[in-house]
């Protein structure tokens, strides 16, 4: 019996990737699937970015110049949906695929066939979503938050396709999350207790639970929309006894945890990078874990802070104000811990560290404006203005997206076996850093001065800063094409990376060869 198993093992060791395109369609290898996710998210990032360029170009000057208001609304809707569901989320899933098994000393994800499925349905979801641009009546035009009844009774016919697409994305996310949880819970190397797991693994474990909790809620919301549109129900139709505010409660019960789904893995990544380049053990590991857990739990009781102006009773407004402010405490703890890690470290500033430092500062700025938004009476003035646009772009672009870029620079030597070009990496960082701030910092002012969000045209007093913002956006946009160039260049060749890659790096992924072999940890490592 044991001989048979032995034999089977040997066969596996020599089993390499299939040849040609088949490799990518049939693969069940976590590294291949991670690569697919990452390239897919990059493609979506560029498409969503192109839409952002259209938006910013239209806002360059007051007046309608480039697109019509209908098309503008389609752009803001698709930009949001594509960046969130196509850009940021699949990028994090790709990183999880590549890194979680290598970090916990597992040979692969626990459910490799499902892993393949959860990726390969995604391109179809986005094909359906993007094809709505060419349908009669145009693409969805009601914002990524798709508030009913604008998204039901008053929506274009393509909304049905949008609903289908969201269902597919949800299925993909849920499958991906189940895979992550099962892998982490069952496949850790002997000796790796929960409180010994790398923080990126912790952050993804928590994220995966959040996804499983809220994706079905989103699916419920869009299904109710489908019923309202096609089957004569009135969930969200006041004329039929329904409740448009109910939609917002359901949506944000999904939507707020979703926000943390997009930032928790970033926390994990940044913790690793700061630790490595400070050459000093991360300060307060266990408080980092508890902070992430608190943030995740709190994220379920703050959703209505997106709805302060819908006319909730005073008690509800107060509850959601206080609970929202409370989130600042664990978030603050994380920032303090990062800085304490740097304090008395021995720091160098390679590209990943530059992105991580910018993350800490700019994400914290986004946190400050978030705290301001939590103050309900002031929120009446901020709500649905460019102040909010500035706020969430600060946490998502120099927050989530910078962390993804940092991760790519940090782990790409391990993935490809080649070092990226440090000079180009730093140039990319500085272009992005300047671009992002020139784009989004003035939007705070535009918002405070009174410009609403989601408008294709604006009054004259907002003209100057919109112009600046557009200039910054194009700088940022073009520097991401530059990023694409750097990544391709690194994949094609470059200085051979050592196994350790970074002097201060810790963790199992640095103990395997560079590039990481197709199969790693077929025999589990021992963790002391």
């Amino acid at each position, binding site marked *: 019996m044991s001989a048979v198993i032995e034999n089977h093992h040997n066969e596996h060791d020599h089993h390499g990737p299939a040849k040609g395109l088949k490799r990518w369609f049939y693969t069940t290898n976590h590294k291949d699937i991670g690569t697919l996710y990452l390239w897919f998210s990059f493609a979506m990032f560029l498409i969503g970015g192109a839409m952002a360029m259209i938006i910013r170009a239209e806002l360059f000057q007051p007046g309608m110049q480039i697109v019509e208001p209908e098309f503008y609304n389609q752009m803001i809707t698709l930009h949001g949906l594509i960046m969130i569901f196509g850009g940021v989320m699949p990028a994090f899933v790709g990183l999880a695929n590549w890194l979680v098994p290598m970090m916990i000393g597992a040979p692969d994800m626990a459910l490799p066939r499902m892993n393949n499925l959860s990726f390969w349905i995604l391109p179809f979801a986005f094909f359906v979503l993007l094809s709505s641009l060419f349908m009669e009546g145009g693409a969805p035009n009601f914002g990524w938050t798709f508030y009913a009844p604008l998204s039901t009774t008053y929506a274009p016919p393509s909304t049905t396709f949008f609903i289908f697409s969201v269902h597919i994305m949800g299925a993909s996310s849920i499958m991906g999350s189940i895979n992550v949880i099962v892998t982490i819970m069952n496949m850790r190397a002997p000796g790796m207790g929960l409180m010994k797991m790398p923080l990126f693994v912790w952050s993804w474990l928590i994220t995966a639970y959040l996804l499983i909790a809220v994706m079905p809620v989103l699916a419920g919301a869009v299904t109710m929309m489908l019923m309202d549109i096609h089957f004569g129900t009135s969930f969200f139709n*006041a004329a039929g006894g329904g409740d448009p505010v109910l939609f917002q409660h359901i949506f944000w019960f999904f939507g707020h945890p979703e926000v943390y789904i997009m930032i928790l893995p970033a926390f994990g990544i940044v913790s690793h990078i700061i630790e490595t380049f400070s050459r000093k053990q991360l300060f307060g590991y266990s408080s980092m874990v508890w902070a992430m857990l608190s943030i995740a739990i709190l994220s379920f009781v703050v959703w209505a802070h997106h709805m302060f102006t819908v006319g909730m009773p005073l008690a509800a407004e107060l509850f959601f104000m206080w609970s929202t402010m409370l989130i600042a405490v664990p978030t603050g703890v994380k920032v303090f811990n990062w800085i304490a890690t740097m304090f008395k470290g021995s720091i160098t500033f390679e590209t990943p560290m530059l992105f991580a430092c910018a993350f800490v500062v700019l994400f914290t700025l986004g946190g400050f404006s978030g705290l301001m938004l939590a103050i309900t009476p002031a929120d009446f003035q901020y709500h649905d203005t460019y102040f909010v646009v500035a706020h969430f772009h600060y946490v998502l672009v120099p927050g989530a997206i910078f962390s993804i870029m940092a991760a790519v620079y940090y782990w790409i030597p391990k993935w490809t076996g080649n070092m990226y070009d440090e000079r180009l990496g730093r140039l990319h960082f500085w272009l992005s850093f300047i671009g992002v701030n020139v784009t989004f910092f003035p939007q705070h002012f535009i918002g405070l001065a009174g410009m609403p969000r989601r408008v294709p045209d604006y009054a004259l007093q907002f003209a100057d800063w919109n112009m600046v913002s557009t200039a910054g956006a194009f700088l940022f946009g073009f520097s991401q094409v530059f990023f694409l160039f750097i990544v391709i260049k690194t994949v094609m060749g470059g200085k051979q990376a050592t196994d350790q890659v970074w002097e201060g790096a810790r963790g199992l992924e640095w103990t395997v060869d560079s590039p990481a072999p197709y199969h790693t940890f077929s025999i589990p490592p021992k963790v002391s």
Partner: protein
Amino acid sequence: MTNVRNLICTFKTQFIVIAFALSSQLSAEWDALNMTKGATEISREVYDLHMLIFWICVAIGVLVFGVMFYSMYAYTKKKNPVAATFHESTKVEIAWTIIPFLILIAMAVPASKTLQTMYNDEAGDINIQVVGYQWKWQYRYLEDDVNFFANLTTDLDEIYNKVPKGENYLQEVDEMVVIPVGKKVRFLITANDVIHSWWVPAFAIKQDAIPGFINTAWTIVEEPGLYRGKCTELCGKNHGFMPIVVKAVEQDEYDSWIAEKQAAAIAMAELTEKDWTAEELVARGEALYTTNCVACHQVNGQGITGIFPALAGSGIVMNDKARNIEILMEGVQGAAMNSFSYLSEVEMASVITYTRQSWGNAQNGDGEIVAPKDIVEYKKNKI
């Protein structure tokens, strides 16, 4: 010596004057970039809260980023080749959990108090119902029976850059909401189609206008003046084009405005009895078509394929007078077409007749006009 002193003195004065001029200009520019202080006690309280939390964030930022930038500067590998080895401290963790918590409580207290005041929901001296439509606002003065719509007046040519933009570009309307100063005005805010949001920054009022709900907000404006606001909830394609202008006036001016409005309404009602010709109705209908229908059905009556049906060449508009009236009065279930029954009989008849007479509809169809009496008849039969 005195000369020199004088010279210095002059320089000093000049410097002070210039510095003062600069700083006042800077602060004026800063004000234009900051939240408005507004025109009411509440809006000033909100502004103070905003500045309080802003400065608290600045202070925390200076402290936290100060430590961070210092670490980035002083603990580079060059200056500190060997890193320290400490990596936890329960005391420090507890401290930086509790201190932020206390700061938060200090902010929550004044914020909660202001919110309570804003939520005072007693009836006002004047109660105005505000109804959001795609893409205009309706105002109904509940005590005085005054009722009107406010539409954007900015010309399409300005929007499409064919002529220079006016000073109040996208912030001007055909009918302003007139309120008296020093009185408590309560707004009862709702919507007819999708969700809108009624925002006047100077009053610190932003309330969503939601179909099936009535939200309230109140204000007491101290100074006469024009206060401009906007719709702040995405409500479809012309979301950026439905501004709000509130005109606060002294009480006597307000009274005479109300009287004027009521007289105009009576005059309009009398017109219903008149016998109208097609030309008269068409002339009146064109302007109404522009403000009420163009956004969807377009100037040329062609609509937008797939979303908004064409009126030019439509069977109903050409031949089916009864159904034509019914659609305008009742709207179309499950579609973007709403009831326009709030239009007066004359307005309703004019706008329908305009569509029945334009774009070749009269030549290709029965060419019948709809008179105000037909609308009166329809309303009677419905009861």
